């Protein structure tokens, strides 16, 4: 029997380099939303530490471990990427597979901050938003998750269905940033 072919959200549309910024599609592997039940946050943190080597992230922080990343994703919610969530977590939190829900790209380069300054209404200066920092906001008109990976690199997540608009908006902003040299 034939197989169902998998297709990534930005398949065939990346990478893209304009000026001092490059966008690539990021393969994060399994993604799971984790929302702790009432009063179970401490237990959950312990279970996360045991299973994935990570605690529960503070708001606006992301944690990284061996191949995994735990990104604060909103009120009482985090996104585990890079590993299938340990089923033991189900006792302490609502889990939902989101591996296919988000388009994930990496924006890298000296101009990355200037590009995002055209799209995200939040202070992303290095001194304020350092590597490891994450936030939920909007990118253009789209709901987005944004994480600073390093001095000039950001992980951007938007709804899978909006991948086309993400790339359009990034391209426009990259051109505007590049036009200033």
């Amino acid at each position, binding site marked *: *029997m*034939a*197989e*169902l*072919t*998998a*297709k*990534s959200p930005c398949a065939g549309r990346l990478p893209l380099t304009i000026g001092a910024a490059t966008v690539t599609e990021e393969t994060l592997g399994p993604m799971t*939303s984790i*929302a702790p*039940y*009432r009063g179970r946050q401490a237990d959950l943190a312990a279970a996360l530490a045991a299973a994935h080597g990570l605690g529960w992230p503070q708001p606006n922080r992301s944690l990284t471990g061996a191949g995994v990343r735990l990104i604060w994703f909103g*009120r*009482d*919610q985090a996104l585990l990427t890079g590993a299938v969530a340990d089923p033991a977590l189900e006792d302490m*939190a*609502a889990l*939902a*597979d*989101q*591996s*296919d*829900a*988000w388009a994930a790209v990496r924006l890298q380069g000296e101009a990355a901050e200037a590009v995002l*300054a*055209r799209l*995200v*209404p*939040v*202070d992303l*200066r290095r001194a*304020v938003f350092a590597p490891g920092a994450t936030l939920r906001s909007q990118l*253009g*008109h*789209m709901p987005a998750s944004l994480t600073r990976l390093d001095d000039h690199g950001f992980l951007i997540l938007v*709804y*899978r*269905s*909006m*991948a*086309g*608009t993400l790339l*359009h*908006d990034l391209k*426009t902003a990259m*051109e*505007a940033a590049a*036009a*200033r040299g």
Partner: protein
Amino acid sequence: MRIAGKGLLDRSKPVAFRFDGVRYEGLEGDTLASALLANGVRLMGRSFKYHRPRGVLSAGSEEPNALVTIGRGADRIPNTRATVQEIFSGLDAVSQNRWPSLAVDLLGLNDLAAPFLGAGFYYKTFMWPAAFWEKLYEPAIRRAAGLGALSGQADGDVYDRAYAFCDLLVIGAGPAGLMAALVAGRAGADVILADEDARMGGRLLSETGAVGEEAGVSWAGEVLAELESLPNVRLMRRTTVVGPYDQGTFGALERLGHHLPHRGGGPLECFWRIVARRSILAAGALERPIAFRDNDRPGIMTAGAVRSYLNRWGVSPGRAVTVFGNNDDAHRTARDLVDAGVHVAGLIDSRHDAPQSDLFPVYRGAQVCGSAGRRGLENITIRSIAGEDRLQTDCLAVSGGWNPSLHLTCHMNTRPHWREDIAAFVPAPGAVPGLSAAGACNGTFSTAGCLREGAAAARAALEDLGRTAPPVVVPEAEDDPYRITPLWAVAGRGRAWLDFQNDVTVKDVKQAAAENFRSVEHMKRYTTQGMATDQGKSSNVAALAVLADVTGRSIPETGATGFRPPYSPVAIAALGAGGSGKGFAPERQTTSHAASLDRGAPMIEAGLWYRPSFFPAPGEKTWRQSCDREVRMVREAVGICDVSTLGKIDIQGPDAARLLDFVYTNGFGSLQVGRVRYGLMLREDGYVMDDGTTARLADQQYLMTTTTAAAGDVMRHLEFVTQGLHPDWDVRLISVTEQWAQFAVAGPWARALLNGLLDAPLADGDWPFMACGEVSVMGVAGRLFRISFSGEHAYELAVPARYGEALFRELVARAEGLGGGPYGMEALNVLRIEKGLITHAEIDGRTTAFDLGLGRMLSSKKDFIGKTLAQRPGLLAADRQRLVGLKPVGAVKLITAGAHLFAAEAEPLRANDQGWVSSTAFSPTLGHQIALGFLSRGPERLGEVVKMVDHLRGVETLCEVVAPVFFDPEGGRARG
């Protein structure tokens, strides 16, 4: 006339440009105004109402007269201030609001009719005969009105928008702003220094005084060099801060491309939202004219502007210049001109105690009471105790004093304070939270005072920011006292202009007062003073003073000037950058998007989503042919439809069922694992909000589906209930809409199709109607729901979205093998109407469960959102318009959505209105038109014939009222 040895421009860099088709040469760094003056061109525009010839009044963005159009093509830019536009090679500027030419403007005839065109004349006439207003008077007025013209073509330029954040925003880079930025920059604060000019330095560029040991302009250069070197300071040139908004947000317009001959695809402008913890307004001051008879002739301008043209651009606007003022600052203009070798024919100072000079004749206690000249100033009349005297002059530099540029401090509706000693308004402290004013905009006019205040404001801001101010020495500079004796308008006959562009004269203000438009707001609105493109920057205070004088009140008693954002006008394209075309809203595409396009399906918008309308087959020429075929296909074989756009919310936790019971009108506690139930949701005001199915996936896990349109609203509603009303409930909500690609497989062959696809075929007897569970689809874990929106035996099959496209293609291929295929929104709509299933055409926000025939779904056993107000008498009234089916019974067979319903014999008038048609379709299954609609007492009137009237489409149809389910009313096909 360019003056040797004067100005900051490089004489070796000529730039050629055109004005009204004539080629001129200027220098790099010239504005259009300075370059034209250097070429001896004084006539640059026409006034709005009387089409009076006008030259420049100012040397900045406040210019009311010299407005031109830049360029001639689709992207031409009207109403550009010649005083702001930098020249570049190839610049093509055109004058405006004149016909046939700037020199000969036939509408100049208006000027002769001026006695009849005074303040508010149009409110008193043009009323007879009534029909003439729209047909004759108004079109003529409209044609004559307006300044420049848009091209009518889509704006093809690129615009940019961006955010910036800083500790301190300094607005204006004159002495006060530079000093403030320097102090804060050295302290390590993140500083943005923004200035509207191409070159920073503010008034220092226009004055000859020293700062410290050097020329002011050199000092500015050194400070700027240091600021450039600081990584924590950002200099934004050509950037006008246009308005303050709440919590330290400022709008600012950066002009990136207006001075470039070739932009290379880069943005023309960038609109910035700057968020600053503290801000300093150092915007300087604007000089005001004095009103006297015919004070609007080309060649008459502010004294400060004359100094700017002379000292910055090396241009004298005249060969024999006169100066008219009421303050000491005016004398500076005369001195600078003499120093530059320009002939000063005289200085007229209205003060009897004005300083004398041995450089030029000073007429103390005298006033200019008139001017003469054709299209430009030739002479002025001076009135003194000795009588009237005429003086030949081609340029009159006027200074009525200076108005602090406090505009931004008025934008939040705080009124400024009047200071009698400087005869000017100053900012009210605290007018904009976090902002302080320093320097001339605060009423401190000496250079030294500006430097001191700039430094002090920065120190105060640093203290607020928790930083230590470094020791910075404030350099010495001119510290002359500002001495002024107010003179607003010279008495006498004739017209004396206050608002130049809008042609508002002293007489107009007096007439307004005579007609009891004595409130300053009334006067402004009646005369249009202050309504021109400069927002009254050059006229507000003088007009207020004239009004105060004529009504016998003091200026503060009479009122204050007000200003609104933006400080200077901003292009719609900049504020809405990126909004045109597809940029207006995100596009959401399903995983089957490309596959649907491959099949030639026209896509339609469903909220932000795109969904296929229909899938044309070879030979089909109209959408109806395709739609009818797709409907028959589903009824007779099997159809495939992407339903991924419906909202999907994963609800988990011990209290998940409690939540569902609270937000749905019907009970969910009894729903078994592996089963699906239809639910109805109300708003708290008792009207229907949304509907959908919810599946119980596990003991404490439910999957709620919402309509496509309401997905976001429902999620927010559930979050409100769980956070705001019942934070004690242990339940978690996670949107999984995007995770799953979901397809309806509908029709008699649906099960056969699935059994060829699923890794384990569906056993007979399993998967009854409204069952759900996990399945394996070609090796992929998926979910299957036995639900139907078509009335057929149907399923919805969901897989992770990465497999969506592949599964869609596979499903369609298999369906085609069974005589079926894909179907689109048109067929989906027909199928659901045949079954009387509702969508947002029926759940339109004004219908109740009672109206929809779903009253029995309102549980009496529990509380739920909307329960109480749904029981209001008005929501249960027997004569409400309620859901019915309609079918044509007369000669006309067409039923149209949006038509209204009447008793068969009634006139189609509001008083007889009994309902309306919500959804219609041609049913290929039944062979005739069918419709859903709402009819007063509808369910009681089955079998009655009513009249449908669609005035707009010209259709009148007799319809039989029937039950809203047209096909398979027992539901056997879906269950079987």
